């Protein structure tokens, strides 16, 4: 191998290393962006495990509509009004304002299919803006009826949060 070949090989290695660094950096930035914009999700089955366990329970807040809450809600969850409405956000703010910002909070709605729910994301953003660092959203794919009640998970009825 002459000097020219060695030089070409060296250049090739440098280019490949640079490409790797760029790719790793972009991946890290994507992960960082995702972690700051995408709310962490909890599956209903995982919530059930927590509710049945001796572990500390999150503060569970329903951000949907009152008629839904009265018909059926997750035992222990509190109603604050639709997150898409100014009243709902105001009530949410009032409810959590005195809590430590590390408080574990789980938001759920179930009014509509997940990607069309107007309520959980504004509520999540409000809590993040207030400085809460431990907020999760309950992933309800279709609606509360199909993804919670029909699966046989426990429900409470009426205006009181109730217990499991």
């Amino acid at each position, binding site marked *: 191998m002459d000097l020219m070949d060695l030089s070409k090989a060296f250049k090739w290695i440098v280019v490949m290393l640079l490409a790797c660094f760029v790719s790793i950096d972009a991946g890290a930035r994507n992960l960082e962006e995702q972690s700051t914009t995408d709310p962490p999700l909890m599956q209903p089955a995982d919530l059930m495990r927590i509710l049945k366990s001796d572990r500390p329970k999150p503060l569970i807040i329903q951000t949907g*509509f*009152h*008629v*839904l809450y*009265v*018909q*059926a809600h997750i035992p222990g969850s509190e109603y604050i*009004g*639709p997150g*898409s*409405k100014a*009243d709902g956000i105001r009530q949410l703010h009032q409810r959590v304002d005195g809590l430590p910002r590390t408080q574990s909070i789980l938001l759920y709605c*179930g*009014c*509509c*299919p997940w990607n*069309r729910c*107007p*309520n959980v994301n504004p509520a999540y953003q409000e809590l993040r803006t207030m400085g809460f660092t431990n907020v999760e959203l309950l992933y309800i794919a*279709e*609606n*509360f*009826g*199909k993804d919670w*009640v029909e699966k046989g998970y426990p429900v409470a009825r009426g205006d009181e949060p109730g217990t499991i």
Partner: protein
Amino acid sequence: MLTVLISAFALALGPHLTALNATERHPLAPEFSLADLRGQKLDLAAFRGHVVLLDFWATWCAPCRNEIPRFVELQNKYRDRGFQIIGVSLDDDAKAVRDFYAQFKMNYPVIIGNADLAERYGGILGLPVMFLIDCDGRIDSRHDGETDIALIEKELEPLLKAGRCVGKRHGH
């Protein structure tokens, strides 16, 4: 022998079972009398003889909002054939519904619903939910989620053609 006996039993019961299933499949729509947005009582019973589309919805619900202009068109198209849409808003705030009603130029009555009514209709645990009620006041079908209007029209036609529909207009 056993097969013959079972067949005879099934034949004897057949018509009764069919009738029972038809009634179960199409139960009477629960009656209600609730205030509309003008504060006037609206009785479902007053619409007997009409095909009624009962729509549970809310102003902030995106799939519900998509449906409203289509329902307005549907009401115009079939009004003279004895078709009536009734909206049941599950909003917490009646003022928001009044504003929405005016903004979307809704042309059918809307009442403010409650949990009792929702439960009597089998539970409304997601929005929107729509019922088609035939001229005899029986629930023909229930649709959960945003509906395909072509499908609704397909279901509507035979109900409107039933001889017992009066097809007269209401004041709304």
